[in-house]
């Protein structure tokens, strides 16, 4: 095996990984970024609408309002300390991105332009606020490019197209990672003092998803196998507006610019479900509304989609009805949403300035994942015990700033805020510790697993198992779930796992760019995370945020103001997963209000029924 040694090893080169790399380097650490993709291919680049920060460039705004919206959006499962950090540091983070050169759109006053986004309000829900800082509808692309450019400027070490396949732990301490050099198929050991996973989500567990093919949850699955529990896995966000059947994301920014959702009768149905903010309610609320419209026969032509309408005539009609002076025209739509227009014209032959877009909910974002504290340190139990040297940030981590449902724009905030904190913390950590020695058998286990997959003489092709997994997750662990559907999913997933470990076969026996082999290994990661998701969802007998159960339709604060933690209980091929519900939610902002003696009805951060 090839050996490398760097103090800080960052796995994944999206927004969180690159931000961590910049800050760890700045803090004096020797850093290596190891990524299965060229950094600019990372899925941060697909984020469209904006990054939330209470800059107040258009409306009066404050971080505490942003924190409130984040907590309410998360259906009160959000850790309030994390939401506070996210909202407060969002401002510095966005200013910092601008200083890195990010080409934000500008207001007439030459400041960073902001737009409205779902669930973002002023003065604790009073009215929608312009908070999403944007660069047209390619904000994520500009963040990714900008951070990569700065990494080049600072001469950060990159190992591009090196796929990390195992975490090395010695006596409970992090010692490094094992990676496959995709170009040669050879195994490399990266000996490190600190490792940060920033590997993104696992939307590819579902068949209709906005996620890239590479979003297979590698980092989370690896951590799970090495003893780290997965937090709040039952909460997976379905974005309301994916392109019908394809799942490609249509940004919430369309509705932020005035677009509306219409059913087969031409009704703006969100008026019923969220009378005050309507189409800009939080994503879980809007996805359920679309699902309900379709279930009641009001999908377009009786099919499983509704229309998203940004035609200026439609938008101006509703502006006028709401008493707003604002009016838009074709040029405005073209300049604010160029990529959306391009997607619709390319894939649907639909021109959104002339016709409405067919949309349906699409699997989009993992609120759950590797549990961390607000410094991106991985914690491994309900007492927040830190695992020395292990860090996680971005979608793969669960801080939990997003609780049961993430607000739009907050994923990008999460990347920069917690990526930065992780980078700073690691730089400090590696100065004070010695190298944890590598165990003698480092890398041997995963090497054997690759050998097993390569030599499999069974009859199951990975794509067949993957299709079956995606279908059962879409059908049974989707927008709505019940005990029956989830049990069905768990049974099917166990069968698929059985086939995966005992009956697999692949075609490619080579070593160079063996994508057949890597896809098969990634399937193993997804099968685990899918099952953990279904098992965690089964345990939570309530409906909260993105987790909606027909058999338990109400939120149950008496019993369920807790995070779940799912542990692997044996080897992954036979694990049953132990799911606990003992980790308390941080309610520190509410507790502060109570300590100040605020009366009940003045307590903003007290969990209450969500109304939009």
């Amino acid at each position, binding site marked *: 095996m090839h050996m490398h040694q760097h103090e800080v090893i960052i796995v994944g080169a999206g927004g969180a990984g690159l931000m961590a790399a910049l800050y760890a380097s700045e803090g004096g650490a020797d850093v290596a970024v190891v990524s299965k993709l060229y950094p600019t291919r990372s899925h941060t680049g697909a984020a469209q609408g904006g990054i939330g920060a209470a800059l107040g460039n258009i409306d009066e705004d404050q971080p505490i309002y942003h924190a409130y919206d984040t907590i309410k959006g998360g259906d009160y499962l959000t850790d309030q300390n994390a939401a506070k950090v996210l909202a407060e540091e969002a401002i510095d983070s966005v200013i910092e991105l601008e200083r890195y050169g990010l080409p934000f759109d500008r207001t007439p006053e030459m400041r960073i332009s902001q737009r409205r986004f779902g669930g973002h309000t002023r003065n604790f829900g009073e009215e929608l606020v312009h908070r999403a800082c944007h660069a047209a509808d390619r904000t994520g692309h500009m963040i990714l490019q900008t951070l990569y450019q700065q990494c080049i400027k600072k001469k950060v070490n990159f190992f591009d197209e090196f796929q990390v396949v195992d975490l090395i732990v010695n006596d409970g301490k992090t010692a490094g990672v094992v990676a496959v050099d995709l170009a040669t198929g050879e195994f490399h050991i990266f000996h490190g003092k600190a490792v940060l996973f920033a590997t993104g989500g696992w939307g590819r567990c579902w068949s209709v998803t906005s996620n890239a093919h590479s979003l297979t949850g590698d980092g989370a699955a690896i951590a799970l196998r090495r003893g780290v529990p997965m937090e709040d896995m039952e909460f997976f966000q379905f974005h309301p507006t994916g392109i019908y059947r394809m799942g490609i994301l249509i940004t919430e920014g369309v509705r932020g610019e005035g677009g509306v959702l219409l059913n087969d009768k031409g009704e703006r149905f969100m008026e019923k479900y969220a009378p005050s903010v309507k189409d800009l309610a939080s994503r879980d609320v809007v996805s359920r509304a679309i699902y309900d419209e379709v279930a009641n026969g009001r999908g377009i032509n009786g099919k499983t989609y509704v229309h998203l309408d940004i035609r200026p005539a439609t938008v101006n009609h509703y502006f006028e009805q709401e008493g707003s002076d604002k009016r838009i025209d074709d*040029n405005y739509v073209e300049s604010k949403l160029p990529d959306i227009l391009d997607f619709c014209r390319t894939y649907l032959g639909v021109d959104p300035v002339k016709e409405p877009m067919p949309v349906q909910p699409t699997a989009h974002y993992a609120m759950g994942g590797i549990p961390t504290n607000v410094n991106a340190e991985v914690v491994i139990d309900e007492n927040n015990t830190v695992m020395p040297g292990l860090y996680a940030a971005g979608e793969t981590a669960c801080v939990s700033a997003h609780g049961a449902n993430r607000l739009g724009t907050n994923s990008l905030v999460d990347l920069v805020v917690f990526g930065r904190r992780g980078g700073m913390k690691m730089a400090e950590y590696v100065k004070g510790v010695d190298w944890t020695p590598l165990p003698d058998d480092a890398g041997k286990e995963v090497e054997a697993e690759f050998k097993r997959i390569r030599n499999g003489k069974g009859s199951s092709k990975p794509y067949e198992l993957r299709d079956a997994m995606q279908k059962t997750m879409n059908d049974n662990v989707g927008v709505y779930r019940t005990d029956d559907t989830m049990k069905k999913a768990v049974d099917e997933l166990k069968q698929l796992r059985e086939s995966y470990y005992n009956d697999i076969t692949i075609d490619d026996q080579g070593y160079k760019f063996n994508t057949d082999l890597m896809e098969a290994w990634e399937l193993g990661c997804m099968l685990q995370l899918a099952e953990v998701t279904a098992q965690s969802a089964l345990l939570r007998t309530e409906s909260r945020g993105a987790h909606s159960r027909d058999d338990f339709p109400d939120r149950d604060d008496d019993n369920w103001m807790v995070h779940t933690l799912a542990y692997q209980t044996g080897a992954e091929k036979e694990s049953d997963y132990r799911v606990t519900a003992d980790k308390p939610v941080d309610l520190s902002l509410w507790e502060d209000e109570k300590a100040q003696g605020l009366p009940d009805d003045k307590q903003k951060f007290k969990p209450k029924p969500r109304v939009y």
Partner: protein
Amino acid sequence: MADLTVKFKIRRQNPEIPGKDKPYWQEFTLTGVEPTDRVLEMLHRIKWEQDGTLSLRRSCAHGVCGSDAMRINGVNALACKVLIQDVGNEIMVEPILGLPVIKDLIVDMEPFFDHYRSVMPYYVNNDPVPEDGRERLQTQADKDKFDDTTKCILCACCTTSCPSYWANGKYVGPAAIVQAHRFIFDTRDQAAKERLNILAEENGVWRCRTIYNCTPACPREIQVTKAIGEVKLAIQRGKTDGIVKVVHAHQH
């Protein structure tokens, strides 16, 4: 719903298999194809249903990550942005030209990224930050001057469609110039002169012969030739102002 039969002819090469280590063509037939299916999806079907050794790069599958640049019926494109109805029932797929092939449709991207890194593709501004702790100011009109070139996803469709680049791999190529343009015309940036000096060297912009292949090849519809022209003009005039006319709305 149509149910098409589509023939693929794919340029293949596998360095690890004797006899297949030189480029060769292989045909595959797919049935049950929809006109609106993406070429990428069809390549996946071939890989998954017929031959798992077929190798390609891909990630986002909707034209924003830049992984799956290839030559489709002789034209550079992202496989995820080309629909079957755009190219017909007989589809020829090859790796992009001008970079060494490693395996099937996968080429060595390192020379491409080396050129990219050579043009100082990062923002430089050493002035003290504004006293109010906030953002530097910029007008939307100034931002629009380089808006087009900020869309670049480094997919290499432009550079590997350029005959000047095919003829001489030392030429930095259109993508690197597009990336430099994005900073040269940013009013906040302070390193335009250094970048213009780099691009005035023998492997810089003057290797561009305005052949124009790059512009239609760009999956992001960047006006690549125009951007290169603006950089040439800036080098000749020794300044960047007054060169770029801002086009506000995108033309379709």
